[in-house]
């Protein structure tokens, strides 16, 4: 039983999203990380546009437009400027080594697929198979946040998690109402701006963006 072409394209884009999530997990250079994030945003936009075209829902075109403006153009731009000013280039250390991270990542992917199976069966959209991939992307981004020791990759992991959630929204429900999406986009943008300010404060205080400086407050 073969799916129609549009479903195949969406499945392919979903697979690429998962691949990018893994690539971000194992990436060492922050510059490439930001570019991967931009690519993830692009994949998301394409997927939303294809869904918009197949199901004739014009509001999804607007959603795709917001995504491309925010996640492919604006946020990577802000991030690039940030790392240029902060002079951060390389993040060599991860808290656990890369092969172990990859294995943990695979386990999380299997977990996500299992959890998503019953929900996918209940959803009524054409893209419901991709809900598992969306959840897997979220979990992988979360893993990336935990295993990094510098501030900027942690934030990129956070944004990637939000990408995964957005993908889950489009795959399970054809996107949220416009006003909500605008609100979320605004939140993300404001959050980035605040974080930018915050990074400078951290750097000013500690002369580095290593997160381990920020672990002194512990329970006595």
């Amino acid at each position, binding site marked *: 039983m073969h799916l129609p072409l549009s479903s195949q394209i969406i*499945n392919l884009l979903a697979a690429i999203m998962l691949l990018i999530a893994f690539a971000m997990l194992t990436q060492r250079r922050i510059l490439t990380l930001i570019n991967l994030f931009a690519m993830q945003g692009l994949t998301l936009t394409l997927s939303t546009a294809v869904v918009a075209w197949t199901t004739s829902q014009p509001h999804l075109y607007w959603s795709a437009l917001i995504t491309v403006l925010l996640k492919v153009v604006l946020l990577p731009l802000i991030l690039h400027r940030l790392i240029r000013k902060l002079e951060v280039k390389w993040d060599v250390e991860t808290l656990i080594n*890369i092969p172990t991270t990859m294995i943990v990542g695979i386990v999380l992917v299997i977990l996500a697929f299992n959890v998503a199976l019953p929900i996918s069966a209940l959803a009524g959209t054409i893209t419901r198979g*991709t809900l598992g991939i969306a959840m897997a992307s979220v979990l992988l981004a979360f893993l990336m946040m935990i295993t990094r020791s510098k501030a900027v990759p942690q934030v990129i992991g956070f944004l990637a998690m939000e990408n995964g959630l957005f993908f889950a929204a489009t795959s399970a429900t054809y996107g949220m109402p416009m006003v909500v999406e605008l609100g979320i986009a605004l939140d993300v943008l404001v959050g980035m701006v605040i974080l930018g300010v915050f990074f400078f404060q951290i750097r000013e205080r500690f002369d580095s963006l290593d997160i381990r400086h920020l672990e002194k407050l512990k329970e006595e």
Partner: protein
Amino acid sequence: MLPTVSGVFAQIAELVLAVLVAPLLTGWVNMCRAWLQNRSAPPLLAPYRVLAKLFQKEPVLAHNASPLFRITPYILFGCMCLAAAIVPSLDTNLPFNTAADAIALVGLFALARVFMSLAAMDVGTAFGSLGARREMMVGFLAEPALLIVLFTASLISHTTSLATTVEKLAGMELVIYPSLAFAGVAFTMVSLAENARIPVDNPATHLELTMIHEAMILEYSGRLLALAEWAASLKLFVYSCIGIALFVPFGISDGGDWAGILLAVPVLMAKLAAGGFLLALIETLSAKMRIFRAPEFLGAAFLLAVLAMLIHFLLEG
């Protein structure tokens, strides 16, 4: 299923073609690489001349070389010929189908690897052991990845027999299978590692400390060396054929048709030429990794293969 005449013919043709064309493929890859690096290329038939030269020379062996050392090149060559016979490159109606499937194929490669490593350690030189250790490490990581790639293809065709898999895949309409796409990338990474290509190992290096494959055949000379080199070219040929059979199977005839088999030969040559160029391109664009990064590279390949399988279950199951 009784072997048909065309089947037997196809089988023999495949084997002869593999043995004869493998050095040509190696020469083609070297030529493309030279072009891409803006050097003047060695002649296309150079590997044949090297083989001819080596066959005329007498092998010089160390005092403490055991019989294992002497028969290993023959075993290597034999394994690779057998592998070439199993992989359906011209036709899927091969008499050897019932003898071996995808898992046995991986086993054949493992057999070859074990013997080569043993022979490398046999004479007791430092570089031999070094090469053997590294080869085992690469193999230990690459084998599972290869297995899972083959499993992914098998899941789509519901059988592990390579010929049946190829038949099914060739017969399907043009469908985008993300799992096969991922499996293809994983397979490319594994074949780069197994065939001792950049970024895992430099086939043209003369620095012993950076060698993996070359270090193991350092002690061979004369016709033994010729056989070992030929076996290496055959391995590259067989891997390319596996890749072609799984991922671009159009043109492989599906049994019984003489015209189909004859047509399959130029199609195969064309695909091999394209594959060789791609390999040269990858080699030119990448740099050789440091040895301790090889596990990461292969771990990524393993990961991609597992992902391919998981995606198959999720999206296509």
